[in-house]
């Protein structure tokens, strides 16, 4: 019984790790992704190039590849973070590319006439972006951004492949020692699925709430 209790504690800590990795990774991706999106739609060519190259590379590299490079590779060139921080950085860097594309696509769904009208009224680049384009674009960004969040959640599970004891890592660890491990995998799957589906549901409601009726 005491082993079960200690396992329960481990599982809760693992769940906490998975959730905090997801939230930190998503927050980082949101900040970096927004900066990249501004780079990509702005008028400065070298910055556009940085944005494009970043997105094309990070979108096409497998997350596990990035994790291994950062977790096992960076110490080889003398950069050492603790494991948790490294994984959080990786999640943020990787998903920033997807956030950037979600924002850029969202901006592109705003009819050109809106931006033209804003320009005709004499608004500057920042003003027309902030007061006319972005408020309308935000609406069509919700669903993609929720998808990125779910992506970060599911991607954070790869942390267990490089040794982080997140929810999946704990399940895998206990499974090595206990025959009922498979039940734990089912429970972990239920947790992941309910968070992902719950976020999808909330995203849908938010989207309907801010919908602009024309």
């Amino acid at each position: 019984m005491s082993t079960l209790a200690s396992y329960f504690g481990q599982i809760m800590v693992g769940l906490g790790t998975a959730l905090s990795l997801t939230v930190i990774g998503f927050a980082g991706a949101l900040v970096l992704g927004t900066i990249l999106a501004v780079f990509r739609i702005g008028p400065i060519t070298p910055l556009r190039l940085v944005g494009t190259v970043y997105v094309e590379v990070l979108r096409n590299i497998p997350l596990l590849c990035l994790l291994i490079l950062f977790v096992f590779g960076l110490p080889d060139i003398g950069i050492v973070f603790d494991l948790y921080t490294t994984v959080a950085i990786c999640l943020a860097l990787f998903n920033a590319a997807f956030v950037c594309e979600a924002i850029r696509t969202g901006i592109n769904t705003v009819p050109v006439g809106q931006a033209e009208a804003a320009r005709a009224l004499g608004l500057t680049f920042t003003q027309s972006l902030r007061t006319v384009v972005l408020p309308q674009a935000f609406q069509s960004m919700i669903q993609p951004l929720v998808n990125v969040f779910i992506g970060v959640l599911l991607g954070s599970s790869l942390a267990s492949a490089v040794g982080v004891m997140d929810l999946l890592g704990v399940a895998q660890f206990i499974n090595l020692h206990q025959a009922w491990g498979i039940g734990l995998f089912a429970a972990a799957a239920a947790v992941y699925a309910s968070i992902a589906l719950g976020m999808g549901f909330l995203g849908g409601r938010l989207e309907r709430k801010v919908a602009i009726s024309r």
Partner: protein
Amino acid sequence: MSSANRVLFDAPGPRARRRIAVISVVTVILIVAAIGWAIELFARSGQLDPNSWVEFTEWPYVRFLLNGLLQTLLCTVVSAAVAIPAGVLLALGRLSRNGLIRRLSGAYVEFFRSIPLLLLVYVFVGGLPAIGINVPVFWKLVIPIIACSSAVLAEIFRAGIRALPRGQLEAASALGLTRSQAMRKVVLPQAIRLVIPSLVTQIISLLKDSTLGYAASYPELMKSAENLTAYTHDLIQTYLVVSLIYVVINLALSQLARYLEERQGRNRNVLRGAGSRRVRRVNRDVNDVVLNAQ
């Protein structure tokens, strides 16, 4: 540059041009500095030692990685070959008029889209063998990939089917085709053509998924790289080369997807009467679905 981006700013005047030039120069300097810093880090820790890099030109090493790449491609092709038809069936199931089939396929799709692939791999590697179910290593990797990606593919096909004008199905039944005939002969051929760009994008995520062979101990490219590293101890070099291989293949595939999408957008005959706007909307919906690819 898309048209919406272009109208966000005027053609810059002399002052703005000067400012842009200054920021450009600063950016270029920063980029060069960053690259220089990275090279300096590599050099200081001895990672630029030519001996650590020339091995990637020697045939035994190249052959080892090529073998890994071959297994990666095999995984991808086999998963695609099973998951795509399964995805079509699941999509049809979700649109079925039979409530039970509809609900079952809906539950399957929602569940397997929402769990981490690695969890399923662990179930096949560690969970099922413990209760006496053991499959060959290849399938320990490929079955989970099929299970998860068939769910995503089902959503892609469903988006494609729903994007077709209703008139297609109505015209088919007016001609006396049964519902299943109409689906098979009228709706599916058009819907599948419509989502081909997204299918290509999905192949990219299948290729990425196969990297979990690292956790399943199946010697695809990722695991081969690890095995190679155990021997050469040149970890960062090996994984940089491997990353480059993945990025090059995936970039080629995403260019192909983009090309197909553009061709569809131009060729209105793909969907007579529906026009390119509908095509764009489908691909946007579909891209929402496939964005989750890790």
